[in-house]
């Protein structure tokens, strides 16, 4: 399969208190159109990932709102929701609309405005990505679920507290070179280990922040892409898988099956394997998430992710640089936008436009997870 990314756009990630929900989506969309050097009238459809406009900003019917505020009526506009994987699925829906022959040029974006409510409500809203009746009802928080996976991983494979901290340290170091990142500053292992406890063993600096932000990519069919650019980045593989919504129902608490299954599909469609991937954006909502991610994607063996992080293979300059953007941890995690923002980063990497964080890569991958693993979506990218 081959679908081109001909333009990418982001907003600054952070506490965007001066901007509204619809405003940030429009800003990212305009940036993407400018980057593609096309006009809104060239678009045929809108796909928008959003987890919880209803709980965060009292706004449902996000699809209609976005089309209207973007001045794109009467284009068909569709909202896609899968918790933190909403953006990745919006991208996939856009891809499928092109591969089906239904459309030739579409925008796939994601948006979340998380700082308009207080922290307790944000925590509750994120926890609705778990099973509401049998996890959330009993006091389960999202950091709590990942903390339980972390403790199991530590017990089963000997992963250390320090190794998890190294994920945050690396991603913060990468974010220094990303002008869109929420936290573009360095931290140390000691900073992580001395930050306030959120859900033992995970501390504040193991957790991605609460973020406002939006991201958009312009997708085009292979045939039409050549009208707009000589050097598109192609999406060559796409995979999506579902896993148990509850962590307690999973076969193994230290393995995310949906990541394994989604990546297998993406690799198969692309004719690639994990060894071919040269740069990746991996879902590090929590530090342990990146370790589980690089294992599930096949970059390292199951259980070897902590040691691999310590050995530096995921650093820029390492065998497989992971989260050059700063990742969810330091770039920020506006949940509905994240999956699309990952695609933006890999596009910049393959175009050679990632500046201070540039890697030498022709093939990249994105990995976006909803909930504790109820949904995973993986895409592969190749330089045109």
């Amino acid at each position: 399969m081959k679908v081109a990314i001909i333009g990418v756009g982001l907003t600054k990630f952070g506490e965007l208190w001066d901007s509204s929900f619809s405003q940030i989506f429009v800003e990212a969309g305009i940036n993407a159109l400018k980057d593609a050097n096309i006009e809104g009238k060239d678009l045929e459809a809108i796909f928008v990932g959003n987890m919880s406009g209803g709980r965060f900003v009292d706004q449902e019917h996000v699809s209609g709102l976005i089309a209207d505020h973007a001045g794109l009526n009467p284009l068909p506009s569709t909202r896609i929701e899968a918790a933190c994987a909403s953006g990745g699925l919006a991208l996939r829906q856009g891809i499928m609309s092109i591969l089906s022959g239904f459309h030739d040029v579409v925008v796939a974006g994601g948006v979340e405005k998380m700082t308009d409510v207080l922290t307790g409500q944000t925590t509750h809203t994120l926890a609705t990505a778990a099973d509401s009746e049998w996890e959330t009802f009993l006091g389960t928080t999202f950091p709590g679920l990942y903390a339980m996976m972390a403790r199991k991983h530590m017990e089963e494979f000997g992963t250390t507290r320090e190794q998890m901290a190294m994920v945050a340290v690396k991603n913060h170091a990468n974010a220094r070179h990303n002008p869109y990142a929420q936290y573009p500053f360095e931290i140390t292992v000691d900073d992580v280990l001395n930050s306030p406890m959120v859900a033992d063993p995970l501390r504040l600096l193991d957790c991605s922040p609460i973020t406002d932000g939006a991201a958009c990519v312009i997708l085009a069919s292979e045939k039409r892409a050549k009208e707009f650019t000589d050097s598109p980045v192609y999406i060559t593989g796409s995979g999506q898988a579902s896993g148990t919504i509850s962590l307690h129902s999973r076969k193994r608490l230290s393995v995310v099956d949906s990541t394994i299954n989604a990546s297998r599909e993406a690799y198969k469609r692309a004719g690639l394997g994990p060894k071919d991937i040269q740069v990746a954006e991996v879902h590090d909502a929590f530090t342990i998430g990146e370790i589980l991610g690089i294992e599930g994607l096949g970059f390292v063996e199951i259980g070897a992710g902590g040691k691999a992080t310590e050995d530096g293979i995921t650093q820029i300059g390492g065998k497989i640089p992971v989260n050059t953007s700063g990742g969810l941890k330091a770039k920020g995690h506006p949940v509905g936008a994240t999956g699309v923002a990952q695609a933006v980063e890999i596009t910049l990497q393959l175009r050679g436009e990632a500046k201070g964080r540039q890697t030498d890569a022709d093939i990249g991958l994105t990995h976006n997870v909803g909930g504790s693993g109820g949904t995973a979506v993986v895409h592969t990218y190749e330089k045109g």
Partner: protein
Amino acid sequence: MGSNIPRFWRNLKSRYNLIGTKCANCKEIHFPPRHFCPKCRRLSKLEDFKLEGRGKIETYTVIHTPMDGFEGQIPYVLAIVKMPEGPRLTTQIVDCEIEEVKIGMKVKSVFRKIQEDGEAGLIHYGYKFKPA
């Protein structure tokens, strides 16, 4: 956010008495209860099955940053308990010092208050687990 009574009332059987389901076809036991056996699908023959309420902690965390409704309980232990009948569940661990909680610890169920649905809403009860 206030919710209507049936949302909680329909789960009382399981939350108060740990009633799960057993598929008479494949003998698998489920908790939380299922409406459909994922293995047997249309051949499912689900019946109520009461769990004994004993198990071992497979993993746990201590929640320090709660969501709305749990502020008064922090820090509290949340665990995944594996029951000898087969299924696991997510539960709070109570009646012990946090430092005592370990992976592999034997626990048993108790009936406790879980949370309140706002100031004027329902008080929810259900299972928590304590050292056995």
